[in-house]
């Protein structure tokens, strides 16, 4: 069917985490009969098991649908459901590059939160038409008047005709569809016959078809057989398939200006595709680049090691495979005295780290140990060289170091006014600075802070949530580096340094952190035959110590003939259970010990 530009609407759904984007997408898919009701399942667009299980969206998901409006005309909607979590903000901004408008979902019970603000700014920057909707009005705790006011005052969006919806019950969804038609402008183009230009906003890898490039066509059109050029990478290929998402990939004859769809050529390596690049035709193409995206760089680093050294190659394969569909994380081989061979991986944030590790565990059936998350420190050595340090183990001798700089973030925290004191205390406690506070409305404030990135890696978010009874939310972005008194802290088990536990901390925080780590380890490492001292040290100085008491008794009272074989089997089985732990010197350390140190449980603050 020939599609006039006038009848196309490209939009994304944006919101703070859990405000109901994916649920609303479900309702829109239903209302437009894109998926037959009987094939409908909840959170249709969250395709990954992990997304469905955790109820979070990790990847943006485009979907194309036909909608017949009240005016009798049929429109082509290209909708992109986006993630709400701050780690995946780059997914949101890429999606916006393919759209003219955004449905801004605000939970009427929660109100405007940090990512509501951040994503609204992104949408404004991208020149999108914003359609605000108040979701979850079915909840008794929904406060429509107040949240409407917040949207007007905080976000500066007029709310003359507020759309009140429940993505759960479907209430108000028809009105949204009409609003999309009326309020979001159709795509503009220089024409379908103009030189081809399309924006690459994502890519996925399919083992049979190779790299599948997601594009928004700006000018011109794509057909099977066309030869295309990726302008900035210089990569060329011939198209074997073009299609749309409905919601699964569906081949079409032609993908025209104004449309969102995908291209399949002969490219096998996702690294050959740069997100944000411009695609044009190989012959007589346009040389004019479309505005691309800011490059995303990993901010949080952690060593990922197989529990069993035999699994090293399996981990490599797993990382390579995941990387095909998630170029946002980086990895390179490294080794640890304690853990053997593994990989240093870079992630966008802690959730991203968890997601990648969890996928490795499940999809590749791996037992993994990951080390304490760290950031990149910039070292200035006395001999004038500069070093980027992503692993504490590689810290040069302190006598060679002139100064250490640590990364800083600019954070926006929104919280109820009554807990501003607690929130400020947490920020200060984490060596942060509150730059400005501003009231959002009668009940809530917004704090702008500067914080060292390494201070928010461990349980910062949990602390914010707990002092605010779940109401505080935070958004952040990188904000340069600052010189700081950072030292390396080592952990000794039974007198031996376990390099996997070494971490960089601010000197003023070392003792507290050392105690916390020793305690967490002492609580998770099971008792052994003998007493095991757990010590934290800086250089040669011991700054904290805990002891793991030996177990009292482990002996069968009566061993008679009838019992010998059974007992031997039992012992063997117990031994096999131990083999799944890492052995350092004579100390068996279970995976849970790495996790407990990571989570910073056993706080004694």
């Amino acid at each position, binding site marked *: 069917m020939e599609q006039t530009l006038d009848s196309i609407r490209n939009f994304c759904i944006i919101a703070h985490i859990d405000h109901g984007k994916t649920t609303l997408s479900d309702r829109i898919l239903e209302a437009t009969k894109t998926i037959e009701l009987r094939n409908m399942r909840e959170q249709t667009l969250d395709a990954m098991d992990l997304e469905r299980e955790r109820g979070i969206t990790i990847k943006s998901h485009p979907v194309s649908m036909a909608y017949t409006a009240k005016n009798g005309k049929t429109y082509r909607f290209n909708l992109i459901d986006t993630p709400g979590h701050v780690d995946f903000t780059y997914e949101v901004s890429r999606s916006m590059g393919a759209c003219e408008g955004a449905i801004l979902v605000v939970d009427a019970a929660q109100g405007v939160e940090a990512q509501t603000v951040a994503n609204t700014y992104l949408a404004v920057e991208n020149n999108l038409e914003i359609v605000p909707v108040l979701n979850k009005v079915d909840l008794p705790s929904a406060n429509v008047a107040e949240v409407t006011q917040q949207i007007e005052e905080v976000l500066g969006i007029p709310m003359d005709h507020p759309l009140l919806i429940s993505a759960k019950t479907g209430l108000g969804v028809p009105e949204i569809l009409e609003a999309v038609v009326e309020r979001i402008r159709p795509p503009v183009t220089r024409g379908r016959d103009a030189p081809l230009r399309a924006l690459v906003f994502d890519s996925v890898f399919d083992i049979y078809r190779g790299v599948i490039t997601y594009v928004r066509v700006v000018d011109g059109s794509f057909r099977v057989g066309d030869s295309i050029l990726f302008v900035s990478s210089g990569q060329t290929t011939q198209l074997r398939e073009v299609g749309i998402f409905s919601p699964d990939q569906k081949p079409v004859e032609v993908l025209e200006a104004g449309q969102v769809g995908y291209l399949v050529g002969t490219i096998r390596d996702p690294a050959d595709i740069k997100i944000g690049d411009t695609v044009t035709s190989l012959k007589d193409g346009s040389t004019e680049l479309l505005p691309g995206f800011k490059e995303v760089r990993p901010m949080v680093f952690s060593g990922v090691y197989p529990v069993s050294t035999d699994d090293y190659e399996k981990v490599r394969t797993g990382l390579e495979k995941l990387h095909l569909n998630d170029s946002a994380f980086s990895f390179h081989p490294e080794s640890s005295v304690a853990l053997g061979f593994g990989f240093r991986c870079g992630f966008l944030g802690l959730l991203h780290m968890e997601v990648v590790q969890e996928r490795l565990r499940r999809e590749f059936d791996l037992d993994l140990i990951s080390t304490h998350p760290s950031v990149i420190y910039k070292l200035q050595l006395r001999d004038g060289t500069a070093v980027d340090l992503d692993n504490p183990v590689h810290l040069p001798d302190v006598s060679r170091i002139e100064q250490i700089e640590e990364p800083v973030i600019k954070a926006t925290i929104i919280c109820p006014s009554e807990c501003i004191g607690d929130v400020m205390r947490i920020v200060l406690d984490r060596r942060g600075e509150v730059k400005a506070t501003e009231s959002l409305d009668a009940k809530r404030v917004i704090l702008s802070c500067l914080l060292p990135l390494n201070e928010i890696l461990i349980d910062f978010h949990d602390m914010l949530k707990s002092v605010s009874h779940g109401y505080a939310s935070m958004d952040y972005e990188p904000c340069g580096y600052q010189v700081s008194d950072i030292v390396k802290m080592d952990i000794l088990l039974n007198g031996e340094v376990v390099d996997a536990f070494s971490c960089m901390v601010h000197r003023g925080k070392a003792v507290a952190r050392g105690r916390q780590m020793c305690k967490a380890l002492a609580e998770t490492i099971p008792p052994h035959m*003998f007493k095991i001292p757990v010590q934290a040290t800086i250089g040669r100085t011991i700054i904290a110590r805990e002891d793991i008491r*030996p177990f009292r008794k482990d002996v*069968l009272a009566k061993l*008679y*003939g009838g019992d*010998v074989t059974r007992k031997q089997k039992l*012992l063997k089985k117990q031994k096999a259970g131990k083999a799944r732990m890492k052995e350092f010197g004579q100390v068996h350390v279970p995976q849970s010990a790495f996790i407990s140190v990571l989570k910073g449980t056993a706080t004694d603050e």
Partner: protein
Amino acid sequence: MIPHLYIHVPFCDGKCHYCGFYSVLNDAHLTGLYTPLPSKELELVVKARPKIARFSPRTVYMGGGTPALLGEAGLSRLIERLSEHLSFASVEEWTVELNPASVSRSLLNALRKLGVNRLSIGVQSFNDATLARIGRRHDARAADQAVHLAQETGFENTGIDLIAGLPGVTPAIWQATLEHAVSLKLKHLSVYALSVEPGTVLARQKEEGLVLPDDGDQLSALKHAEAVLGQAGFERYEISNYAQPGQECRHNLGIWRGNDYLGLGPAAASRLGDARWTNDPDVAGYMDSLAQKQLPPRTFETLTPTDDALERVTFALRLAEGIDPSVVAQRFACLRDRAATWEERFERLMRHGITERGGRRWRLTARGREICDAVIRELL
């Protein structure tokens, strides 16, 4: 040749609260039917393994259950029938387990006539309240009399069992029990730490809130026993066993040192070469099968040479004599590499006060004995 023979008699006149051994309630009809069966079982075992025909064990151990419930005639008949398929000629040590409640002079005389030369009497405690609490069906006086009677009828080698850490036992009561035991001029004493076996009355009581001594209490009771018995000339030659010099139980020593043994009766276990089997704890099944000239229901398996060897050598750590890795390597070629690593492991444990060296042998220290299973795991 199989050096050790065990015969299980699965009848008791009640069930003690802590007991996880297989026995059913005594019934004169059942015991009558039972007496010829171990011999029938042996006949079938021999048929399948002609090599062991008419073997002559060095030790015999009759346990249960309560062997005495077969009666003097029943016991003689059982032995008579067995001697059709094996020879009792080389038996050096022949032990029968006794319950104080079922000891009589005539029974003891009958046992002596059969060739029994060692008695193991289940006493458990010399405190009446404690005995009642754990479901024993005799008092301290009966236990005392049983021991005296045994000694009078000429059983030089008489030993008793005690349980450490029984509920309600104060240090004073334990002390009194130990002192009483010492006064009896016994040759052998087993002191077992109480363990809660699944399916017992004790397990249920614990579930319902009965407070039992914790590990620390148990260990100090055991330590105290070692001190008191040591004073009286007993050597702790195994984790839970004490003997006057030269009076160790040879049957059990053979098992701990890794010899073959044959067990007859329901729930009895056998170790022959790399074969292992354990009859099901099921008297009815046992009787039915043998009536049809079939081996009783059992679990049977063949171990790998390494598993077989490991089982035979590692439990020797329970013994005061300990383990000599170089002897192990000589005895079992398949353990050569592994045994070579033991030396270093034992040395590391020595630094933590868990093992000690005596010549070429490695043995557990007092602390080591508290965690013997953990040390054995290190060797596997």
